[in-house]
């Protein structure tokens, strides 16, 4: 029987942790960009894109992330597309993130007082000009703290991708646990890994919230 030193365990978990970080970053950046497009459709004045964006958001908010991943991973292979686990994981999390961010940001746009719309309309600004110069800059300020807060959720959600076989932190952990028969130690280390990633983020979100609140 092979024996594992603590360093062997940690070393492998670090590799898995790096993949978790990478997946979180990719999901957040790509999901943010997609989410912005969904947001603009959702709050725009054209009816069809607005309805589509709403359906998109409801679809991804109303179903478990796990099933979204299964659908991508197994569903697409039914059409003869061979989807590797990393691609299904990245794509699934991106879609999931975009729907949630679009909805969070919509709340921020709607939190900008109506008087701001009226005042800018009176100055003859068009809808686009109002958005660009008056509404979005204020909404962005409101959005910073909840967005960083949601990043914590994204990091933790990446754990679900272990089920379709993407070897991020959790999957790495379960493989090592099976090989070492030390699940308590290994899973404790895995949890610590998530904590190390998430704690600074949630701390940052909290301090941003305080700062931006005080500045208003």
């Amino acid at each position, binding site marked *: 029987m092979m024996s594992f030193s603590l360093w062997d365990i940690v070393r492998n978990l670090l590799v898995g942790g790096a993949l978790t970080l990478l997946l979180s970053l990719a999901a957040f950046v790509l999901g943010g960009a997609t989410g912005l497009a969904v947001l603009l459709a959702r709050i725009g004045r054209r009816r069809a894109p607005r309805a589509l964006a709403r359906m998109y958001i409801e679809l991804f908010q109303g179903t478990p992330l796990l099933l979204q991943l299964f659908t991508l991973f197994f569903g697409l292979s039914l059409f003869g597309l061979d989807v590797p686990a990393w691609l299904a994981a990245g794509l699934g999390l991106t879609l999931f993130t975009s729907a949630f961010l679009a909805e969070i940001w919509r709340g921020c746009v709607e939190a900008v007082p109506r*008087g701001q719309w009226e005042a*800018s*309309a*009176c100055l*003859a*600004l068009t809808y686009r*000009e109002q958005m660009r*110069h008056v509404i979005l800059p204020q909404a962005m*300020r409101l959005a910073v703290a909840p967005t960083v807060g949601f990043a914590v959720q994204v990091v933790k959600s990446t754990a679900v991708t272990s089920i379709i076989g993407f070897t991020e932190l959790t999957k790495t952990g379960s493989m090592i646990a099976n090989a070492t028969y030390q699940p308590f130690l290994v899973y404790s280390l895995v949890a610590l890994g998530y904590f190390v990633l998430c704690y600074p983020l949630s701390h940052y979100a909290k301090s941003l919230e305080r700062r931006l609140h005080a500045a208003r």
Partner: protein
Amino acid sequence: MPLVSTRRLHKFFGRNHVLRGIKLDVEESEVIAIVGRSGSGKSTLLRTLNGLENIDDGTIEVDGTVLQVDHDDPGALRALRQKVGMVFQQFNLFPHLSTGQNVTLAPRVVKRTPREEAEDIARRMLERVGLGEKFDAFPDQLSGGQQQRVAIARALAMSPKVLLCDEITSALDPELVNEVLSVVRQLADEGMTLIMVTHEMRFAREVSDRLVFMHEGRIHESGSPQEMFSNPTTPEFASFIGSLN
């Protein structure tokens, strides 16, 4: 020809018939004060004049630009709004922009005025409301009265033909009311066309050329303020001014 002219203006909020056929003509340089009880439709009337509220029937014409029902012509709405400035009860300054940027935004974005020229205009307009030194301040660093004067400067920077004032002193602490009213008085003296909804009866009486009393969605009585205050012709207006004291 009047500068502002409305004909058989009707407006509903759901089943509530808030404007019931308004005919109003305002000449250039005229100062109009619209008064009435709350719910009489006075603010709604003001807000239809620059298309903040759409209308259900009738026409609005400002300096040759005609606004129809439904605002189906965005070009006309934009043209009209460049001629009609508005100042609100709650100031509605843009909190993320400095005073100077608040005033230059519309000239730069809508009229494509070059930055330096726009800043020149902004400085002059801020001087005009007595806030020349506040160009770089942010709205939350100003008192309510100062914010309202910036809002006036912001409207003036678009060189509107007519300025709408919607209860612009109602949200102010009593000691700040006069600094705003004196700016309005000065604008009136300079020949600005003003249409204001106000609760400051004494001010309305002093400054306005014509008083418009609204009651149940109609212009119930109108005329020179001196005349109306000394000889109200309708019992509703008599009871309205009676209830003020």
